[in-house]
Protein backbone atom coordinates (compact mmCIF):
# COMPACT_ATOMS: atom_id res chain seq x y z
CA UNK A 1 0.00 0.00 0.00
CA UNK A 2 1.11 3.54 -0.66
CA UNK A 3 1.44 6.23 1.99
CA UNK A 4 2.73 9.78 2.21
CA UNK A 5 4.25 11.53 5.21
CA UNK A 6 4.74 15.26 5.32
CA UNK A 7 7.17 15.79 8.13
CA UNK A 8 6.21 19.35 9.07
CA UNK A 9 2.65 20.51 9.73
CA UNK A 10 3.65 24.18 9.75
CA UNK A 11 6.67 26.04 8.40
CA UNK A 12 7.08 29.73 9.27
CA UNK A 13 9.68 31.59 7.23
CA UNK A 14 10.63 35.18 6.53
CA UNK A 15 10.09 36.72 3.12
CA UNK A 16 13.00 36.20 0.69
CA UNK A 17 14.40 33.32 2.77
CA UNK A 18 14.77 29.82 1.29
CA UNK A 19 12.34 27.08 2.26
CA UNK A 20 12.15 23.28 2.08
CA UNK A 21 8.97 21.31 2.67
CA UNK A 22 9.67 17.66 3.34
CA UNK A 23 7.81 14.67 1.97
CA UNK A 24 8.50 10.96 2.32
CA UNK A 25 6.51 8.21 0.68
CA UNK A 26 6.29 4.45 0.81
CA UNK A 27 5.39 2.19 -2.06
CA UNK A 28 6.43 -1.21 -3.28
CA UNK A 29 6.16 -0.20 -6.93
CA UNK A 30 7.15 2.73 -9.11
CA UNK A 31 4.99 5.77 -8.50
CA UNK A 32 4.25 9.21 -9.76
CA UNK A 33 4.84 12.04 -7.27
CA UNK A 34 3.13 15.40 -7.06
CA UNK A 35 3.09 18.62 -5.11
CA UNK A 36 -0.13 20.61 -5.00
CA UNK A 37 -0.79 24.04 -3.46
CA UNK A 38 -4.06 25.14 -1.90
CA UNK A 39 -4.76 28.83 -1.30
CA UNK A 40 -7.51 29.78 1.18
CA UNK A 41 -11.00 28.83 0.03
CA UNK A 42 -9.72 27.37 -3.22
CA UNK A 43 -9.17 23.93 -4.66
CA UNK A 44 -5.78 22.33 -5.15
CA UNK A 45 -3.50 23.45 -7.97
CA UNK A 46 -0.61 21.40 -9.34
CA UNK A 47 2.85 22.85 -8.61
CA UNK A 48 4.95 20.12 -10.17
CA UNK A 49 5.13 16.40 -10.79
CA UNK A 50 7.66 13.62 -11.20
CA UNK A 51 6.81 10.82 -13.60
CA UNK A 52 10.23 9.59 -14.73
CA UNK A 53 13.56 10.86 -16.03
CA UNK A 54 15.45 13.72 -14.40
CA UNK A 55 15.18 13.62 -10.63
CA UNK A 56 15.11 17.42 -10.34
CA UNK A 57 11.73 18.75 -11.32
CA UNK A 58 10.91 22.41 -11.82
CA UNK A 59 7.41 23.73 -11.34
CA UNK A 60 5.44 26.93 -11.33
CA UNK A 61 6.10 29.98 -9.15
CA UNK A 62 9.83 29.16 -8.81
CA UNK A 63 9.35 25.89 -6.92
CA UNK A 64 11.37 22.75 -7.56
CA UNK A 65 11.53 19.27 -6.06
CA UNK A 66 14.04 16.46 -6.09
CA UNK A 67 13.08 12.81 -6.30
CA UNK A 68 15.36 10.62 -4.19
CA UNK A 69 14.57 6.96 -4.72
CA UNK A 70 16.99 5.60 -2.11
CA UNK A 71 15.51 7.83 0.59
CA UNK A 72 11.97 7.65 -0.81
CA UNK A 73 11.71 11.40 -0.56
CA UNK A 74 10.34 14.19 -2.73
CA UNK A 75 11.16 17.43 -0.93
CA UNK A 76 9.89 20.76 -2.25
CA UNK A 77 12.18 23.79 -2.29
CA UNK A 78 12.15 27.45 -3.21
CA UNK A 79 15.26 29.65 -2.95
CA UNK A 80 13.40 32.85 -2.04
CA UNK A 81 9.77 32.94 -0.86
CA UNK A 82 7.21 35.71 -1.19
CA UNK A 83 4.28 36.67 0.98
CA UNK A 84 2.02 35.31 -1.77
CA UNK A 85 3.46 31.81 -1.24
CA UNK A 86 1.56 31.55 2.04
CA UNK A 87 -0.67 28.52 1.51
CA UNK A 88 -1.13 24.83 2.28
CA UNK A 89 1.11 22.43 0.34
CA UNK A 90 0.25 18.80 -0.27
CA UNK A 91 2.54 16.02 -1.39
CA UNK A 92 0.82 13.16 -3.22
CA UNK A 93 1.73 9.76 -4.64
CA UNK A 94 -0.02 7.87 -7.38
CA UNK A 95 0.55 4.48 -8.95
CA UNK A 96 0.14 4.66 -12.68
CA UNK A 97 -1.68 7.97 -12.43
CA UNK A 98 -4.76 6.38 -10.90
CA UNK A 99 -5.56 6.37 -7.20
CA UNK A 100 -3.76 9.28 -5.56
CA UNK A 101 -2.86 9.38 -1.87
CA UNK A 102 -2.33 12.81 -0.33
CA UNK A 103 -0.24 13.76 2.67
CA UNK A 104 -1.72 15.70 5.57
CA UNK A 105 -0.32 18.96 4.25
CA UNK A 106 2.23 21.57 5.34
CA UNK A 107 1.10 25.10 6.06
CA UNK A 108 3.71 27.56 4.79
CA UNK A 109 3.48 30.93 6.49
CA UNK A 110 5.65 33.67 5.02
CA UNK A 111 6.30 36.60 7.32
CA UNK A 112 7.30 40.11 6.26
Amino acid at each position, binding site marked *: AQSVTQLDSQVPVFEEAPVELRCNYSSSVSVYLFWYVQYPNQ*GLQLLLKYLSGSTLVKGINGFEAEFNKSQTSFHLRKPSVHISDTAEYFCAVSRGGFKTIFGAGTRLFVKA
Partner: protein
Amino acid sequence: EAGVAQSPRYKIIEKRQSVAFWCNPISGHATLYWYQQILGQGPKLLIQFQNNGVVDDSQLPKDRFSAERLKGVDSTLKIQPAKLEDSAVYLCASRGLEKAKLGEQFFGPGTRLTVL
Protein backbone atom coordinates in the same frame (compact mmCIF):
# COMPACT_ATOMS: atom_id res chain seq x y z
CA GLU B 1 -10.50 26.27 -20.87
CA ALA B 2 -13.15 26.38 -18.17
CA GLY B 3 -12.19 24.74 -14.91
CA VAL B 4 -14.03 22.28 -12.70
CA ALA B 5 -17.25 23.80 -11.39
CA GLN B 6 -18.85 22.92 -8.08
CA SER B 7 -21.98 24.08 -6.31
CA PRO B 8 -22.97 25.12 -3.81
CA ARG B 9 -19.80 26.67 -2.35
CA TYR B 10 -21.12 26.57 1.19
CA LYS B 11 -23.84 24.57 2.91
CA ILE B 12 -25.00 24.47 6.52
CA ILE B 13 -27.40 21.73 7.61
CA GLU B 14 -28.48 20.03 10.79
CA LYS B 15 -27.53 16.46 11.57
CA ARG B 16 -29.82 13.82 10.08
CA GLN B 17 -30.70 16.13 7.17
CA SER B 18 -29.81 15.35 3.55
CA VAL B 19 -27.52 17.30 1.25
CA ALA B 20 -26.34 17.06 -2.34
CA PHE B 21 -23.34 18.49 -4.11
CA TRP B 22 -22.89 18.98 -7.84
CA CYS B 23 -19.77 18.86 -10.00
CA ASN B 24 -19.17 19.69 -13.65
CA PRO B 25 -15.70 18.51 -14.74
CA ILE B 26 -13.51 19.96 -17.47
CA SER B 27 -14.99 19.17 -20.86
CA GLY B 28 -13.71 15.88 -22.24
CA HIS B 29 -12.26 14.60 -18.97
CA ALA B 30 -13.29 10.98 -18.56
CA THR B 31 -12.10 10.52 -14.98
CA LEU B 32 -13.89 12.25 -12.10
CA TYR B 33 -13.05 12.11 -8.40
CA TRP B 34 -14.81 13.13 -5.20
CA TYR B 35 -12.63 13.83 -2.17
CA GLN B 36 -13.42 14.64 1.44
CA GLN B 37 -11.04 17.10 3.11
CA ILE B 38 -11.47 17.40 6.86
CA LEU B 39 -9.94 20.48 8.46
CA GLY B 40 -6.20 20.01 8.95
CA GLN B 41 -5.99 16.90 6.77
CA GLY B 42 -5.22 16.07 3.18
CA PRO B 43 -7.96 15.12 0.72
CA LYS B 44 -9.27 11.57 1.06
CA LEU B 45 -10.68 9.85 -2.00
CA LEU B 46 -14.35 8.93 -1.66
CA ILE B 47 -15.12 7.72 -5.18
CA GLN B 48 -13.57 7.65 -8.64
CA PHE B 49 -15.52 7.43 -11.89
CA GLN B 50 -14.25 6.51 -15.34
CA ASN B 51 -16.91 7.89 -17.69
CA ASN B 52 -20.12 6.76 -15.94
CA GLY B 53 -18.65 3.68 -14.27
CA VAL B 54 -17.27 3.43 -10.74
CA VAL B 55 -13.56 2.56 -10.58
CA ASP B 56 -12.99 2.87 -6.83
CA ASP B 57 -15.49 3.49 -4.04
CA SER B 58 -13.70 1.54 -1.32
CA GLN B 59 -13.64 4.51 1.08
CA LEU B 60 -17.18 5.73 0.46
CA PRO B 61 -19.43 5.22 3.53
CA LYS B 62 -22.14 3.55 1.51
CA ASP B 63 -24.69 3.50 4.30
CA ARG B 64 -25.06 7.27 3.99
CA PHE B 65 -23.10 8.49 0.96
CA SER B 66 -24.02 7.95 -2.67
CA ALA B 67 -22.70 9.34 -5.93
CA GLU B 68 -23.66 9.10 -9.55
CA ARG B 69 -22.43 10.22 -12.94
CA LEU B 70 -25.26 9.14 -15.18
CA LYS B 71 -24.17 10.53 -18.54
CA GLY B 72 -20.44 10.44 -17.93
CA VAL B 73 -20.23 14.20 -17.48
CA ASP B 74 -21.77 15.91 -14.41
CA SER B 75 -21.76 14.17 -11.06
CA THR B 76 -23.67 14.49 -7.81
CA LEU B 77 -22.62 13.39 -4.34
CA LYS B 78 -25.32 12.92 -1.73
CA ILE B 79 -25.23 12.45 2.03
CA GLN B 80 -28.31 11.05 3.73
CA PRO B 81 -28.54 11.38 6.69
CA ALA B 82 -25.66 13.69 7.60
CA LYS B 83 -23.62 13.29 10.78
CA LEU B 84 -21.53 15.86 12.65
CA GLU B 85 -18.33 14.17 11.46
CA ASP B 86 -19.30 14.81 7.83
CA SER B 87 -18.36 18.48 8.28
CA ALA B 88 -15.60 18.97 5.71
CA VAL B 89 -14.79 20.42 2.31
CA TYR B 90 -15.90 18.18 -0.54
CA LEU B 91 -13.62 18.52 -3.54
CA CYS B 92 -14.33 17.39 -7.06
CA ALA B 93 -11.48 16.79 -9.49
CA SER B 94 -11.18 15.58 -13.06
CA ARG B 95 -8.41 14.12 -15.17
CA GLY B 96 -7.91 13.90 -18.91
CA LEU B 97 -5.92 11.55 -21.08
CA GLU B 98 -3.40 13.99 -22.54
CA LYS B 99 0.08 12.53 -22.26
CA ALA B 100 1.54 15.91 -21.30
CA LYS B 101 -0.74 16.09 -18.28
CA LEU B 102 -0.43 12.45 -17.24
CA GLY B 103 -1.62 11.90 -13.71
CA GLU B 104 -2.54 15.55 -13.14
CA GLN B 105 -5.88 16.19 -11.52
CA PHE B 106 -7.74 19.49 -11.87
CA PHE B 107 -9.67 20.52 -8.79
CA GLY B 108 -12.78 22.57 -8.31
CA PRO B 109 -13.07 25.15 -5.51
CA GLY B 110 -14.89 22.73 -3.22
CA THR B 111 -18.09 22.78 -1.19
CA ARG B 112 -17.69 23.56 2.50
CA LEU B 113 -20.25 21.55 4.49
CA THR B 114 -21.04 22.37 8.10
CA VAL B 115 -23.26 19.93 10.00
CA LEU B 116 -24.74 21.33 13.22
